[in-house]
């Protein structure tokens, strides 16, 4: 009897992700004739969560999904998922321990592991070397600190005769996942935004406010970034169009940028202020409670296969996402790839500075509070301190119930 598995997965980066997934599944099914997997692409992370949860609520057969690592608490609160500790035997422990700890931070709570890292990324800095040359900068020397970034950024800004900016120094996207970028800034300024239990936020800490002020000033004060929000979706296009010399973006965009860039570009870790830092991001595998024991077992088999070193390596090469285990980086394939394209290693190297992505109870709602605050500040509607204070207060109202 073949076990049928249905799963949803999101795509938040360019490239033919769907084809790659389908390909991997085809291979998997060849090796495991007893298991049939149907993977449905359901849009961005939020859409996919909505789909998965509504599907569950409507009693659709869904056994596992790749969902936002940060939806952990939401999923637990919805009583939708089971911890992997209940699925695996002692034999599987090593597999579980093989993942980079930074990537596992979003998977652990209440002393259990709820999600398995899959399409994970960190934020990295892409830079247009030609723009650097043009501005008389060493194309291979990168801003290592905020100060440097501002100073270089100013030189990278290009204006036309009318004095209108035709190229910006740097762009940090502020739609789609503003809180994520902001986490990086906060972290670099020495602060995290929430606690491990996901029932407390620290939006109003001075260092956090400072971070937001810095972000705003990139546009408002230094003029090296456009005022208002920067569109996540169109940023890559903007970078490829040479409209900005530097962009912050997910490593997940590495491959598409590499494919489409008509110019020589580089990738590096984000600059530091008090320290280096970037949140991890992206999707984990979750297994749903609704799944029958047989299905759970099949799901585990599938997940283990998908995260085995060879797959992880190939997946990383195809997409630019981080390969989730050390072992993956030991594989010849990835070794070779990194040799010819060192940028591919940046994400991994950054993992040592990385921390969990923002994740709390009623994540969507709280996250939106933060996002709105950030956008309010970037669009000049509010002052950082006030905005973050409000967000914090609102978050408190939501999260208070989850402390006892």
């Amino acid at each position: 009897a073949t076990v049928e598995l249905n799963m949803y997965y999101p795509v938040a980066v360019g490239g033919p992700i769907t084809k790659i997934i389908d390909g991997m599944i085809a291979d998997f099914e060849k090796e495991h004739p007893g298991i049939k997997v149907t993977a449905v692409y359901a849009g961005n992370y939020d859409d996919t969560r909505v789909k998965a949860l509504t599907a569950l609520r409507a009693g659709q057969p869904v056994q596992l999904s790749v969902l936002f690592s940060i939806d952990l608490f939401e999923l637990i609160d919805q009583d939708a998922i089971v911890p992997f500790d209940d699925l695996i035997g002692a034999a599987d422990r090593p597999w579980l321990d093989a993942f980079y700890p930074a990537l596992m931070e979003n998977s652990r709570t209440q002393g259990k592991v709820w999600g398995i890292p899959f399409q994970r990324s960190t934020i990295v800095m892409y830079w247009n070397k030609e723009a650097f040359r043009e501005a008389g900068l060493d194309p291979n020397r990168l801003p290592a600190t905020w100060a440097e970034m501002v100073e270089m950024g100013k030189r990278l800004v290009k204006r036309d005769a009318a004095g209108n900016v035709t190229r910006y120094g740097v762009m940090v996207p502020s739609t789609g996942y503003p809180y994520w970028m902001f986490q990086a800034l906060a972290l670099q300024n020495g602060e995290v935004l929430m606690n491990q239990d996901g029932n407390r936020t620290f939006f109003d800490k001075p260092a956090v406010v400072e971070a937001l002020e810095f972000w705003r000033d990139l546009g408002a004060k230094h003029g090296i970034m456009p005022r208002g929000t920067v569109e996540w979706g169109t940023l890559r296009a903007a970078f490829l169009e040479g409209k900005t010399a530097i962009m912050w973006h997910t490593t997940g965009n590495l491959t598409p940028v590499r494919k489409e860039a008509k110019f020589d570009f580089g990738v590096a870790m984000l600059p530091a202020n008090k320290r280096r830092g970037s949140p991890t991001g992206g999707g984990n595998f979750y297994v749903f409670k609704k799944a029958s024991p047989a299905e759970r077992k099949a799901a585990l088999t599938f997940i283990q296969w998908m995260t085995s070193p060879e797959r992880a390596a190939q997946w990383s090469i195809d997409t630019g996402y981080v390969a989730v285990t050390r072992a993956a980086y030991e594989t010849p394939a990835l070794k070779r790839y990194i040799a010819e394209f060192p940028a591919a290693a940046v994400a991994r190297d950054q993992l040592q500075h990385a921390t969990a992505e923002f994740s709390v109870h009623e994540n969507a709602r709280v996250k939106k509070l933060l996002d709105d605050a950030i956008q309010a500040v970037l669009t000049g509607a509010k002052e950082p301190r006030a905005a973050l204070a409000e967000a914090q207060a609102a978050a408190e109202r939501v999260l208070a119930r989850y402390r006892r």
Partner: protein
Amino acid sequence: MSSGGSRLRSALYGWLLLLPAAAILITFTHYPIVATLRDSLYSTARAGRPAAFVGLANYRFMVEDPVFAQVMWNNALFALGTIPASIALALVMALWVNRRLPARAFVRLAYFTPTVLPMIAVANIWLFFYTPQFGLLDQVRSLFGLGHHNWLGDARTVMGALIVMTIWKEAGFFMIFYLAALQHLPPDLAEAAAIEGTGRWTYFRRVTFPLLMPTTLFVLINATINSFKLVDQLFVLTKGGPDNASNLLLYYIYEVAFGFNDWSYAATLTVVLLAILAGLAFGQFFLIERRVHYR
């Protein structure tokens, strides 16, 4: 009109014929309205905590919810921005297309095209128009030496951007209704006026426009409903951002229900939407009565 047949037979027939449609309408229009009212008085079930009767708590939360205030305000702006403009434009288009015009067929076709295109599809194209720096709009601006502008990223312009696009989408549709009405104006009225030496503008002001009043009212209602119904473009263009600057009621309801999984609050917001639409309903019936004012 029970021609011949007895009252009873006719009544029986009537209800039987009505039955299937009624069943569906009740299930998907009338029952949900009641259910929404009910759910707005309960709390959302979460792990551990089942739904419980909370009276007006949800409404209290709504009143304090700054996003709700923002969304209502936006919707008001959206309505004020789209309704008069699209109606006026529709009327002008209709008047133009109704006259002998070079390439009339093409012009009419052009005006009408947006109606047949899915909002969700064209939104992506408009996204390009609005993209800063290399978007079409900014490319044009730069031709005139103007700097680029972050149309969707700027809280001050994002609403305007949405409004313009919506007008583009709707005007052609409303035009059709005006066109229909225009073509049903007896031509000899125009001739009678022509003999009296009525100028075009006078004729429009004194005759055409008053006679189009019923259509205008009808279109007005439609436009108003749409201003609360049309949120597809948000999914592509702004997701309601930045900072809810372009968030609309129905989209917010979607967000709360399916994003936050807060079904009670979604119901509460829906009640508000229903209240508004119900208000319109009465408005419409009242106005429709007046439609026949001159017949």
